[in-house]
């Protein structure tokens, strides 16, 4: 006892000073070496934990930044899920001709990086007819002079918006989650770029911004959603959001509007009069990799 009192520091004091030193050591270079804006970005909260005022502040900041970068007036929506909605997608395999119009309409609508890296949210798989089960034999770099080709079937795959999404489960920082209307979204500012979600997704639905995205300023779409098609940054993961910026306002996703054969259908699974419910009630539907229990909300169907 006597011995301990003679020490200059107790263990608790030592720990306290150690932690203070560490904190100062970390925060001093942070606050001194980066601008106020960068520090603010770094300390920005998770989207779901922001108060309405904080959201407003962040949106104003981002709108200003995007407008400066792309020379257009941006409008960033933070519109939440509508009540009694669960978005579902339908795709008729017997109609898809594999022309990839949807792929490029999606890139344009969602401000994806065009080149280096080129990021596509839709991947059109080409399969030999009668070989639908074996997805490993599919090819998505096909490039014939004309489509459809004889003996082939085309299977577009994008984020399936699972009810039980494996990508959400593995995210170590909760940067991706399922919204009340069933959309799986990413807070790009919160994402740390670990790519666990890319590894976990059985549909290859997610892509990674390996470099700062390249978007031609004249093609940029200024009508964006915070959780959707706003321009991303290097080291963020992104993916199809069923065009959250459109569907929450009652508008069809861009891929639905681009399809020249009317293959793509969209609607509210909880509305018995919606187009998607008509499909599920009357057509032969299936979902990809049902055995994984991911419960996708993306229904493929055949003319029946």
């Amino acid at each position, binding site marked *: 006892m006597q011995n301990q009192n003679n020490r200059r520091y107790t263990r608790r004091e030592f720990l306290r000073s150690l932690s203070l030193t560490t904190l100062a050591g970390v925060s001093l270079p942070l606050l001194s070496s980066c601008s106020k804006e960068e520090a603010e970005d770094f300390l920005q909260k998770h989207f779901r934990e922001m108060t309405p005022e904080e959201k407003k502040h962040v949106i104003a900041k981002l709108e200003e930044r995007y407008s400066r970068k792309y020379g257009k007036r941006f409008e960033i929506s933070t519109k939440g899920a509508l009540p009694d909605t669960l978005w579902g997608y339908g795709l008729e395999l017997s109609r898809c001709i594999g022309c990839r119009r949807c792929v490029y309409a999606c890139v344009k609508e969602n401000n994806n990086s065009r080149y280096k890296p080129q990021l596509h949210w839709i991947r059109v798989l080409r399969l030999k007819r009668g070989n639908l089960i074996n997805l490993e034999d599919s090819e998505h770099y*096909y490039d014939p002079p004309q489509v459809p080709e004889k003996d082939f079937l085309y299977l577009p795959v994008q984020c399936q918006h699972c009810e039980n999404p494996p990508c959400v489960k593995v995210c170590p920082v909760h940067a991706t989650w399922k919204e009340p209307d069933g959309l799986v979204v990413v807070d790009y500012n919160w994402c740390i770029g670990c790519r666990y979600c890319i590894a976990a997704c059985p549909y290859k639905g997610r892509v990674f911004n390996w470099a700062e995205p390249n978007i031609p300023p004249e093609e940029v779409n200024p009508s964006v959603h915070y959780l959707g098609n706003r321009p991303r940054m290097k080291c963020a993961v992104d993916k199809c959001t069923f065009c959250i910026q459109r569907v929450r306002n009652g508008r069809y996703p861009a891929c*639905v509007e681009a399809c020249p054969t009317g293959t793509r259908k*969209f609607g509210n699974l909880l509305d018995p009069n919606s187009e998607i419910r008509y499909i599920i009630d009357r057509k032969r539907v299936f979902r990809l990799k049902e055995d994984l229990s991911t419960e996708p909300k993306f229904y493929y169907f055949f003319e029946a």
Partner: protein
Amino acid sequence: MRMSYAAIPALFLLFSLAFSAPAIIEEYTPPPMTEGMYPCSNCHASMEANREKRDLKEEHTDIKLHHAESMRWCLDCHDAKNRDKLRLFNGELIDFTASYRLCGECHGPQYRDWKAGIHGKRVGYFAGPGKRIYYLCANCHNPHDPKFKPLKPEPPPRRPEENHDAKSE
């Protein structure tokens, strides 16, 4: 007293009419017409109807009928007397904007699905106050040759090795 009871549903109706959501605008895309052709009666009004099946040599040479052509000719769908109209089986004349009714006479299942928004294509808004735009059959299928023509596909995605040199830049 009886009067006031009767007035309640009437008032309710008026109220709901006045304050209900704005009317949903449903719109069809205009039917595809060859430039400068419509109205057809400009020429046809003064011409004698010729019901004979033949090769068209002077006009409409761009139309190659390839739609059950062995059992069909122009006047099965176009009305002989009023060329600005289409003609249903029962003799009813319809506008080109309602051509889906004519198509539906043979293609029943497709017509049923089209009305539900499954066959064919809809763009614009499916909910809320926005405009719903429905494509007519003839906007996608050429009624004289309805089978879809092959398309040139958009370029394939880049392979990872072409995409990833971004890292070094």
